[in-house]
């Protein structure tokens, strides 16, 4: 037990792999036992992560395990894992979603149950490791390791075009990472190791143009994962072809690693370069928000619609990060959790529908509410969260992101925030239009229709899966501070570092609040005079 007390993170990261190998060693005929074993294990990891991480987190100092590991061509690589304010809830989201998804897709697969459960657990190791790693080489290992189980999940258990989707997913992500690996090795050589702090210091000594190139290499790798327009086209294929469990984890956790990569590495390591590229990032984010929503609107397959809605929602995350304000960044962090919960839940629900009706085409449904009232209620609540209705989680994240962007010190902040609000409208358009066509209206009596094949509402297992999600949706909407209080201090510190070297121009007073909030000073009441500044009229453009 003493080893465990001093190495809880190591246990959390690698225990799933050990369990996964145990399951792989079991004979094929024990598939159902393997499935149960996998689920029980994942559930245990979730409970442990809750009790350890929340129970001991206390002052916000977090956990760290760091030890020298090996030397790679003269560069020391550390075994370094950390849980702190920036990744605490993402880690818990991961350990939460894995057993939940296993339970939610209990009967979705018919063959090789044990192998699937084992891959799932390997994937959990990859995700948790990537979230916790505090050494860039270590991080890189996990980052790439995540791809392998997901590749097989899509390629083996996927839909009709699974090979194409799996290859596309793998190569797309890999090609971004290879460029990044080159940058990583270059910088590690300058820094004499893979410690992100030392690498950041080394980067700040380099000429600005080199910093920019390095940042771009990091940003592209992360942006593919997010995915940021125009690097998003792997996502719809992967989501549609992946089995439900794969889609949930893909949307729920894998995409988050892109945004997390920016917060954890790209921004703190290259503060000036990231500020320099804030505008292009924001432009792409706004395009992603509107473009993803417009394309989602015209989809005919529900799952593809949800996939494109991910592009739109993750655009909000990137916009919040590009605002370089406390409110915007906190919003981005919350929005990542929101998206994990809501979109994960949407994929689960679509999976439940597909398991019954064997179709996902919107036109094949109509009047589902009459046949499956419980399912409809859950779907509707998740829809509300997805369209950002107040008192659900979606609202808080989007509101913070938009406000943070609006009052960022950047000259484009106000315009882009206003443009991005249209994503909130379009979100309601595609979600509720789909909802109307699938759930409302007279029952679709066609013999071949999906509605015709719906014979049962949700069973107890499925309700048990959805209930915690609904509780979380409301909890995050009513008391978001549970989930973002720990990240406030790290975010303030991060932005102070990022902002320090850049001269800023304030137009309205907004940025004054941000700065003063960051310094802990109270805001000066006399500041309303700045309203009279002529530049204030820019808001009209």
């Amino acid at each position, binding site marked *: 037990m003493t080893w465990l007390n001093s190495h809880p993170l190591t246990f959390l990261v690698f225990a799933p792999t050990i369990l996964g190998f145990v399951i792989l060693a079991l004979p094929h005929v024990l598939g159902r036992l393997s499935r149960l074993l996998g689920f029980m294990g994942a559930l245990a990891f979730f409970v442990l992560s809750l009790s350890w991480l929340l129970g001991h987190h206390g002052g916000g100092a977090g956990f760290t395990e760091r030890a020298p590991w090996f030397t790679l061509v003269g560069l020391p690589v550390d075994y370094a894992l950390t849980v702190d304010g920036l990744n605490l809830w993402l880690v818990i989201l991961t350990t939460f979603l894995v057993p939940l998804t296993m339970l939610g897709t209990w009967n979705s697969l018919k063959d090789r149950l044990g192998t699937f459960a084992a891959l799932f657990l390997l994937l959990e190791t990859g995700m948790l490791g990537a979230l916790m790693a505090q050494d860039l080489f270590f991080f890189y290992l996990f980052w790439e390791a995540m791809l392998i189980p997901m590749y097989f999940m899509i390629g083996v258990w996927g839909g009709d075009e699974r090979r194409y989707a799996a290859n596309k997913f793998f190569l797309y992500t890999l090609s971004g990472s290879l460029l990044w690996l080159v940058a990583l090795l270059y910088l590690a050589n300058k820094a004499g190791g893979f410690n992100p702090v030392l690498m950041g210091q080394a980067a700040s000594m380099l000429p600005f143009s080199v910093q920019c190139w390095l940042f771009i290499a990091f940003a592209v790798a992360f942006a593919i994962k997010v995915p940021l327009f125009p690097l998003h086209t*792997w996502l719809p294929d992967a989501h549609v072809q992946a089995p439900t469990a794969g889609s949930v984890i893909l949307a729920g956790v894998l995409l988050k690693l892109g945004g997390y990569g920016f917060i954890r590495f790209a921004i703190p390591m290259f503060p000036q370069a990231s500020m320099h590229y804030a505008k292009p990032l924001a432009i792409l984010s706004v395009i992603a928000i509107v473009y993803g929503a*417009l*394309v989602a609107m015209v989809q005919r397959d529900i799952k593809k619609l949800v996939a494109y809605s991910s592009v739109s929602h993750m655009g909000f995350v990137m916009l919040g990060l590009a605002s370089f304000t406390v409110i915007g960044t906190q919003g981005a962090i919350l929005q990542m959790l929101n998206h994990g919960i809501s979109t994960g839940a949407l994929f689960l629900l679509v999976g439940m529908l597909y398991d019954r009706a064997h179709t996902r085409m919107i036109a094949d449904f109509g009047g589902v509410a*009459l046949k499956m009232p419980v399912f409809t209620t859950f779907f509707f609540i998740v829809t509300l969260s997805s369209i950002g209705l107040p008192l659900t989680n979606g609202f808080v994240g989007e509101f913070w992101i938009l406000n943070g962007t609006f009052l960022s010190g950047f000259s484009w902040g*106000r315009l882009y925030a206003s443009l991005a609000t249209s994503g909130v409208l379009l979100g309601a358009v595609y979600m509720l239009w789909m909802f109307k066509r699938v759930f*409302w209206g007279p029952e679709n009596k066609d013999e071949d229709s999906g509605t015709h094949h719906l014979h049962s509402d949700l069973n107890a297992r499925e309700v048990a899966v959805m209930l915690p999600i609904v509780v979380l949706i409301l909890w995050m909407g009513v008391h978001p*501070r549970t989930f973002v209080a720990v990240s406030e201090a790290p975010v303030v510190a991060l932005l102070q570092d990022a902002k320090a070297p850049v001269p800023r121009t304030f137009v309205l007073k*907004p940025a004054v609040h941000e700065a003063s909030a960051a310094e802990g000073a109270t805001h000066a*009441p006399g500041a309303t005079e700045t*309203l009279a500044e002529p530049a204030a009229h820019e808001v009209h453009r």
Partner: protein
Amino acid sequence: MNDYYWLIPILPLLGSAFNGLLGKRAGKGAVTFVGVGVVFGSLLLALSAFFAMKALPDHRLALNYGEWMSTGSLNVPFGLVMDTLSGTMMLIVTGIGALIHLYSVGYMHEDEGYARFFSYMNLFVFFMLTLVMGSSLVLMFVGWEGVGLCSYLLIGYFMETDFAPDAGLKAFLTNRVGDLGVAIGMMVFFAAFGTLTISDILTQAGHLAPEVGFGVLTFATLMFFVGATGKSAQLPLYLWLPDAMAGPTPVSALIHAATMVTSGIYMICRLAPVFTLTPITMDVVAWVGAATALFAATIGLVQRDIKRVLAYSTVSQLGYMFLGLGASGFAAGFFHVFTHAWFKALLFLGAGSVIHAMHHEQDLFKMGGLRAKMPITFWTMLVATLAIIGFPGTSGFASKDEILYLAYLKNPALWVIGLLAACCTAFYMLRLFTLTFLGKARDHHAYDHAHESPTSMTLTLTLLAVGSLLAVWLGWPKAFGGDFRIEEWLAPAVTYGQLHAVHGEHGSHQLAWVLASASTLLGLSFAAWGYFSYKDGLAVSEARAAKFPILHKLLLNKYYVDEGVELYMLRPIRWFGNLLWKLFDVILIDGVGVNLPGALTRVFGDFTALFQTGRVRNYALSMVLGAAVLLYVFLK
């Protein structure tokens, strides 16, 4: 008692949760008890809170219940504020809400979704009270979107039909267009004032001279007004309200007449000190209001569905309210909210009573002669009709006259538009009334089965009729010897934080008399015209329609606005979405950007694979050729 006031909004929320989760199992009795009980409980608490607030010297009671979504410099607590404005609105919502809940017991009795209905209705009361009482703009926005949600759910209540889901979707999305305005307005306010707490914003704004921050504040208030046009169904976002009549009639009365649709007016009153600083916005508000009042009234002239007539009438009356606000008559505009809540709720519930009796027949042309069969409905509807056409002495007269008077002082053209709208109102209301209750029955089958409604419904009608009559007590105009006390009552709220209270111009009493006489005379003659056109059936009106076929068709088809929106807005947007998807996503990014390099790699690989023949003689030949090239290079 202060400790319990949070229950005012929360009680209906609990009721909603109970009815939604357990209602089906608990049975109709329990649903009725909880569903109606929580709103009456909320009303009692609201009364207690109201008098507690009234007893305070500054008529303001602020309660705080901890943090909600604060981060960085943003600070949003859960807070409730009761002042003269929100206190009055709170009483309207709970009072009329309670009556309409009572009415619904009878009206919805045979409906299968009884529990679901009460769950939505209770939820609506919760969100509406949040909108009214929230201490910050964000909390107001919670209510703002929340009532939109309930409206959507209740319009789409008959979800197995084709029409109701479409109407619900239309309502939600149109409202959301307006909500974007509110969201942007909030962002500007936050950027400008550094807070979203309403009282702090008003205090800061009160210290500004009108010119300061002109552009920013004008932009922000215009954005808030965009939100108001959505929720309160003004041009150009009014389109959803007539369709909203697809919902059950109590919903139309509570949400789409008395309370939710007036929240745009309420919001502007709430932010009155800021709106006062932005004269351009005030002009826009007044003109949009006047235009809507007339535009909707003309459509109401020819509609056949009884609820649709009332819907356009609501749009038109809401226009009056905005006209009043735009003419700086915050008290006048709000007074019309108050009086309209009574008589329009009564009109809708009376119509509901008729529809209930006629077995869901809503076509005016198939009614007639119901006076004898439904005496209580007849008399109460008469009260409401007189009030809405502004018959002297009624509450509708008092509030409408004050608005028209202020409109005249702002710009006589506004008065003329308002007057024309009033004439149309008088005509279509008498048309509706005559076709329903007077003359001969036109559908004998339905007529024979018609009967007066059950007590829970007629009781509500009677109480609302009494309310419509008594409402005048709050604001009889000064020109006619009254004291218009609502102005003084609301003053602490609508001038909150203002250092120098702005007083509008006041004309003379003679002017008020002249204007009122002119509008009353004209209005009554149009009412008489409406009565005489329809008292003997449809012949007169059919002849008139035949004389102006184009105009008649234009009005009947509501100026073809819906068709235009579909053709020139929605279709292009869908087309654009398809274009982005198929051209941009599939062909350009995925095809040219992703799959083409992939395909090229494969082709190149296949090509080089040709040289991997596995035959020794081929490899030997390459070796010889290579050696020859090397020799040439080195020996040259």
